[in-house]
């Protein structure tokens, strides 16, 4: 079975632009979470979605938004990009949002804002 897949793997954008990152969870997994990892730091929670509903939101500005589709894939959108948005964006997939479940991470999207 395929693991968590993210696209694109690398992306360069200019300040002020908009970006969309995509994630396909492991087959059968219904929960997707997004994390931002700035170089040299641990990942920071951005959003969690389960069954197409937002179940959690981290301390990020409204420029960050996300959604989950009926096939459980997800998009993370970031508007009005800032240099500080440069980071590795990780998607994590799990079977459900509660209970005994493990989170598996995709390979990430490396976003560079210039």
């Amino acid at each position, binding site marked *: 079975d395929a693991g968590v897949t993210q696209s694109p793997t690398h992306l360069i954008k200019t300040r002020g632009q908009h970006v969309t990152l995509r994630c396909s969870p492991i087959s059968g997994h219904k929960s997707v979470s997004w994390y931002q990892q700035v170089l040299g730091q641990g*990942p920071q929670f951005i959003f969690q979605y389960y069954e197409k509903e937002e179940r959690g939101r981290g301390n990020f500005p409204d420029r960050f938004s996300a959604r989950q589709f009926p096939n459980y894939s997800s998009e993370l959108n970031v508007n009005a990009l800032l240099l500080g948005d440069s980071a590795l964006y990780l998607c994590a997939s799990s079977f459900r949002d509660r209970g005994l479940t*493990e*989170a598996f*991470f995709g390979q990430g999207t490396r976003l560079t804002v210039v």
Partner: protein
Amino acid sequence: ELKVEQNPLFLSMQEGKNYTIYCNYSTTSDRLYWYRQDPGKSLESLFVLLSNGAVKQEGRLMASLDTKARLSTLHITAAVHDLSATYFCAVRGNAGGTSYGKLTFGQGTILTVHP
């Protein structure tokens, strides 16, 4: 707010030596994770610890959890160069909270194993 602290943040080891990475967290949680990250790569799951006193071992790595002390340890036995990586612990928010599905990560421990 849940806070997770790891120490040390940098660890330089000789091959064959033993060492322990510590992970402290600030509030009650029902689940603790250990991940490994190689440079430029994603997070690889190592262990999931579910209950007080839980101990799991895989190869030269052994993780344990003390929920009363809010402490987890990752013990490295007879280190080899292949273990060089960054190790993160992560804690999940407690049941019933609004951030139940959220993982809070420590700062990471950069481990370098020298010949």
